[in-house]
Every structure is written in C-alpha cells, then in structure tokens.
C-alpha cells in the first residue's frame, strides 16, 4: 500500500497538515484558547486537510488537469492581474457563492443545492475557527462583576477582541444558535435532494448508495444530531447530553474523514470551473480555430493545440497522413467525415446500398 502512495502528494499533504497544526498552536495563543473538548473534531479536521490536499495533488498531476492548472496561473500572472482578479471575484460570487449554473438545470434543484451549500459553508466558517481555537468567547469581566450592569459577552479572534454583545439580546440569540440556523438550511436542502433521488427514474438508474445517497444521509445526520444538542439543553434539562454530544461528534468526524474520498470532494474541485472560464476567455483573445470541414469557428485555437499535447501525453495519436490532425475538425466535421468514410467504403465495394 505504501509503495502505491504518490510521493509528491504525500509530501505536500504532510507539509500542509503540519502547517495547519502549527496554525492551531499559534492561532490559539499556544493552546491557551483551545477547547480540549473539541480534540476529536480537530483530529478529524486535520485528517480531512491531509486527505483533501493529497487527493488534490494527485488529481493535479493528471495531464489534462495539469494543463488547465498551469495555463490558468500563466494567464493570471502574465499582465492584467487586476482584470483577472476582478473576473475571478465576479465568477466566484456567481458560480461558487450562488452556483448560478445549477439554476437552468432546475429551480427547485438550485434552491436545494444553494441551501445545502450556504448551510455547510457557514457551518465550516464557524466550526473550523472554533475547533482550531482561533475564536473563543468570554464574559466581559467588568460587567459580570457588577450586578447592576447589563452583562456583556465578548468574541475573540486569534486572541483579539473583535465584538461584544449583550447577553439575552437578539444578537446573542442569533450568535449562540448560528449552527442551528445552518442545520435547518441543510435539512431543507437535503430533503429536496432526497426527494429527487428517490423519485426520478434517471437518477435511480445511475446513482450509487455510497456516491449519492450516503452524503445526503450524513448531512442529515449531522444536522439532526446538532439540533439535538440545543434541544437537549433547552428542553430536556441536559439529560443524556454526553450521549447526544458523542453521537453528533461521530457523524461530524465521519463527514470530515469522508470529504477527500466521496462526493464532498466536488466542493474542493469546483473552483477549477473558474479556471476553465479564464482559459476560454484568454483563448478567445488569441484566436479561434476553424473547422476544415464546416468552415466555421468552433473552439479556441489554444484549446485545440493544448488538446493535441494532452492527448499525446495520454498515449493517443490523432495525426493524419497529411500532417494535420483529426482534432482539427469540429464535432460536426468529425461526424461528417465518419459518414464520408463510410460512403467511401461503400463505393469501394461496388457503390450499391447493402443490406
């Protein structure tokens, strides 16, 4: 097993994991603000970082992926950095933030995905810094000692006080229950997607349990057990809280460990879509390829030239006798050439229709 590991990826993933641990140590002011109750979550998170970086590094080494990765950064840094940054920012909000490409695929589908995405992103933004000890809360010492004053609660980031709020206020209610709001968003999104996956024939035929249903079940389990924690201390006087806490921790840690291997890895892959858009945009500036069969422009010349390199690296050789390539043809041109080759074979065989 060790021999089959990708050395380059192993080194990068180990370095990143070490960096995460160092950032936890220093970000929590040498563990002063680290909450030991979250140690299980920390192990899960560090493993998730290791796995994600390992898989990402292996993925980048594939010839087509590396070509896109290389080209994107080449374009990004070769002049007009700010124009690219602006484009990247716009695309990030539209495609990563709002996932606008899902809307044309179905409105309910988009609503479901958006709710899950926003719920998960908010939950990540809250729980990762909490687990790392980067965020912690304290009582304002002065107000807590004075029974006449309103009690204030303080939020600290990397040990610096960033804001305070009154205990019992609306802001306190929103802040303390932030993860509950995330849970509700995720639950609604998951139910929409569960319904799709359990009723649509096309999905039923092609989906797998571990690839498509398990991720939804995991998200649902995390959200319900998370809500259970609040329910327990609000309405059950904290009875069996240990059991509830362990159940929630188990589901979350399973989710974290599953990120690099399963469907959740698409969250990490998705920004590559922006890279593909930058690639197309830059390619169009450099000129389009014209199909020798249809005489129409069909793709960027850069794309066709790069594909020739990538296919060669992958062991495919589409070079024709005249020095051109089958890849110079548009999809329509390729279909027509195939039909023409079929006609030629028929003509060479007497020319009659055969049955």
């Amino acid at each position, binding site marked *: 097993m060790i021999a089959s590991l990708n050395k380059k990826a192993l080194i990068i993933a180990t370095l990143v994991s070490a960096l995460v641990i160092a950032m936890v140590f220093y970000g929590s002011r040498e563990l002063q603000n680290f909450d030991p109750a979250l140690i299980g979550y920390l192990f899960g998170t560090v493993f998730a970082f290791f796995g994600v970086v390992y898989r990402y590094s292996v993925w980048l080494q594939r010839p087509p992926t590396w070509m896109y990765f290389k080209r994107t950064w080449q374009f990004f840094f070769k002049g007009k950095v700010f124009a690219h940054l602006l484009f990247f920012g716009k695309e990030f909000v539209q495609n990563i933030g709002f996932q606008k490409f899902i809307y044309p695929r179905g409105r309910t589908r988009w609503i479901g995905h958006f709710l899950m995405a926003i719920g998960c992103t908010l939950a990540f933004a809250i729980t990762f810094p909490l687990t790392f000890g980067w965020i912690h809360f304290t009582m304002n010492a002065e107000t807590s000692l004075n029974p006449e004053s309103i009690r204030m609660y303080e939020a600290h980031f990397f040990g610096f006080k960033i804001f305070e709020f009154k205990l019992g206020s609306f802001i306190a209610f929103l802040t303390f229950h932030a993860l509950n709001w995330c849970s509700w968003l995720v639950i609604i999104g998951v139910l929409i997607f569960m319904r799709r996956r359990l009723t649509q024939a096309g999905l039923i035929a*092609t989906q797998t349990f571990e690839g498509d249903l398990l991720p939804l079940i995991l998200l649902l389990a995390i959200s319900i057990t998370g809500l259970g924690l609040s329910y327990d201390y609000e309405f059950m006087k904290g009875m069996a809280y240990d059991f509830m806490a362990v159940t929630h921790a188990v589901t979350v840690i399973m989710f974290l460990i599953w990120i690099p291997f399963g469907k959740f890895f698409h969250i990490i892959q998705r920004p590559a879509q922006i890279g593909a858009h930058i690639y197309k945009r830059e390619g169009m500036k450099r000129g389009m390829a014209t199909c020798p069969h249809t005489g129409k422009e069909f793709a960027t010349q850069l794309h066709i030239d790069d594909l020739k390199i*990538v296919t060669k690296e992958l062991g495919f050789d589409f*070079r024709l006798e005249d020095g051109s390539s089958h890849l110079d043809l548009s999809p329509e041109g*390729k279909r027509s*050439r195939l*039909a023409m080759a079929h006609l030629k074979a028929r003509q060479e065989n007497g020319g009659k229709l055969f049955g």
Partner: protein
Amino acid sequence: MPETNYQTNQEFFVDMQRCIGCKACEMACAECETNGHDSMIHVNYVDRAVTIQTTVQVCMHCDDPVCANVCPADAISKDEFGVVHTANTARCIGCSNCVMACPFGVPKKNEAYDLMMKCNMCYDRTSAGKKPMCATVCPTQALFYGTREEIARMRPNSSPVNNFIFGNEKVSTKVNIMMPKGTTVLRVD
C-alpha cells in the same frame, strides 16, 4: 450502480446509409430520463452543398474512451458493461475537453448548465432490460438494438464493425457500424 437487468447479449448497430433524417430519434432521445429531457443524439447533413444525405451518431462507447481520459475533473466513467456514462454533474467543470477530443464528435456542451452531456445508451432503460429510445423509434432501423444473431439474419450482406482508425489512432468501441460484408475496420482520414 444498483442491481441491473442489463442484457449483455444485446448490442447497438448503426447503419448510416439507412438514415432518412426524420429526427424521430432526436425526439425519442429527449424522453430518456437520464438526460433530463435534453436530446443527445446527432442527426446532421454530411455535406449539404452536394447531398441531402444525413447521418446519425450516437455515443460509440469506446473501450478506452478519449473523453474520459482528457477530462480534467474525472467526471466521465465507464461501467462494468462498457457503457461510458455522461458527465457526473457534481464534477464536470464544463471545459469542453471531451467535446473537442471525442473522435466521433459526440459529447455536447450545454452552455447554460455549464455541463457536458452525452448519450449513455438510455441507461435507465437498458439497465432494466429495455432497448434505447432512439432504436425503438427509428423507422428505417438505421439504429438497431438487438443480438448479433438478429442483425446477421436481417442484414446478410453487412458486417458489424467496431474498429476505427483516425490517423495513427486505433479506436475500438462497444457500438457497431454496419459495413459492407467482410469489412473489419473503418478508416477515417
């Protein structure tokens, strides 16, 4: 994949000379549940300036699919029956590598979805032991789905060919193209 009733003795046979351009297959293809009602089949004029001949193209389901190899997002996969599936919607980044690399010109990029889509041999039907939509409606049987024995009986002067040469590249496929009897390979260059 879940448990299936995929009939491994049934194959796809395409006979281009029989295509009359009626586009019944296009309409039927849009009924396939796995496409989400987008038609994936191609009917186009071979060389409109000189002939009214149309050609029909389904995914050939290559043994070593170029589309899957050039996909930077690992979005295309081949199953145990040799069916090359359409892009995984969660992974596809809409780069069009597969669209431009497929030697048969099959995958389609849906710009609004930012997603590649292609024929997956009506997997919702074939996995249940049924025939693909296009083959069930083709009036001339330019698209035929059945056993080798059936096609040999129906087309005594034809041979199914699933080996193709594009320049220096040999491509073998799951789907067959009907050729004059005795032909073993179709050379495209």
